[in-house]
């Protein structure tokens, strides 16, 4: 579903990704871990066609980036640090806008469905500027799954969420993954990642330094594995 070969990304003189190889099969849930500044966000931005690879090959859902970006975008949902919502529009209006941008027909039904999924039906007529960080994040997740994407990228989706919202997000992520979608999530919350993902990749020093599946983690768990990888 996602295929990345020898991906290099430079910002001016600075090389952030130095030859990333990454492959995700349909239905896999990959947690992408790594220290601050490792390039996780940059990597997800490349997968979502918001940034261009400097070198290397990137394929998402069978389409090449950057040349077939529109096809990739139609099959992709993204949740980032920022909610990507308009403060002066209501929850309903925000989703309507994105529904139009994704060419969703009969979107009223779908919007109601999504608002129920993220627990915001009661707030649909409220402006986003009146939402708390967590509520905006919930709606951001609703926005990302509105067009029922095959691949979903989450960049630290738990940031700023309270217990309630985090469990809601757990549920959403599980239901999203259960439907055979492919998910890549970055997270600093190892316990949560361990709970959800089927595979753990560690991005550090510009490459995927290690990759392991849930089954082969052993009894010490993800934390020890992560620390050992970073220590080199």
């Amino acid at each position, binding site marked *: 579903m996602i295929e990345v070969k020898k991906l290099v990304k430079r*910002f001016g003189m600075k090389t952030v990704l130095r030859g990333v190889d990454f492959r995700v099969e349909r239905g896999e849930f990959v947690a992408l871990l790594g220290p601050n500044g490792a390039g996780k966000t940059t990597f997800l*931005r490349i997968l*979502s*066609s*918001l*940034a*261009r690879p400097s070198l290397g090959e990137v394929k998402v859902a069978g389409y090449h980036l*950057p040349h077939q970006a*529109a*096809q990739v*975008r*139609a099959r*992709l949902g*993204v949740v*980032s*640090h*920022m*909610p*990507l*919502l*308009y*403060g*002066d*529009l209501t929850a309903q*209006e925000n989703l309507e*806008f*994105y*529904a*139009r*941008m*994704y*060419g*969703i*027909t*009969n*979107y009223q039904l*779908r919007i109601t469905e999504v608002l129920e999924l993220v627990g915001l039906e009661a707030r649909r007529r409220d*402006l*986003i500027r009146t939402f708390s960080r967590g509520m905006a994040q919930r709606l951001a997740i609703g*926005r990302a799954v*509105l*067009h*029922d994407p095959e691949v979903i990228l989450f960049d630290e989706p738990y940031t700023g969420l309270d217990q309630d919202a985090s469990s809601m997000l757990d549920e959403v992520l599980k239901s999203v993954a259960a439907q055979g979608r492919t998910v890549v999530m970055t997270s600093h919350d190892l316990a949560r990642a361990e709970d959800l993902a089927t595979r753990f990749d560690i991005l550090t020093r510009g490459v995927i330094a290690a990759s392991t599946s849930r089954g082969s983690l052993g009894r010490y768990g993800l934390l020890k594995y992560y620390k050992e990888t970073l220590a080199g």
Partner: protein
Amino acid sequence: MPTTSHPSFIHATLAVVRKDLTAEFRSRELLSAMLVFSLLVILIFNFALELNVKERQSVTAGVLWTTFAFAGTLGLNRSMAVEKDRGCLDGLLLAPVDRAAIYFGKVISNLAFMFMVEAFVLPIYAALYNVNLFHPGLLLVILLGSIGYTTVGTLLASMTVQARTRDVLLPILLFPVAIPVLLSAVKASTGFLNGADMAEIWPPLNLLIVYDLIFTAVAFMVFDNVVEE
């Protein structure tokens, strides 16, 4: 499950325009800033240049276009800042639409705001200075000049919005690039206001038309590269 398709160019453009107008009519942040600012500029000119009737005729076009240009940058900056501040620009760029459609959507809403400001400024200016501005030729120049200014301005604003100093950066970049528009707009406006020969008005008017076409085409081609990292 939703049925999706790639929305057509025109649908995507209209969705962006509709979103911008809905948000703006709710907050009125951008329009009120532009309107208050324009009003101040005209008033200051009014006091600063204590003009007699004859002199007024000759500065009218200059004062009007100065007002439009400054109020315009204010609006262009705001309209892009709204996209940037909650990461909405990324949201737009993630949509499976031709990115030129997003650009044209922003151009059309910026142009709509510009026209609203102009529709407000003209009668006030006419009343303050006691000049008749309702000349079809002048309105045509304002239309063409605003289109040129907004097409370049929207493109540059989408570049400068990344920078921390965007409020200063936009005018610094935009004014030099927009000089051909502003100069020919002032020339053509003055021509129409003074009832000059069409032979005298055609050259700047043609320049405006050519500029509009060229910059629309350029923006169409480069917008994708400007917004991607």
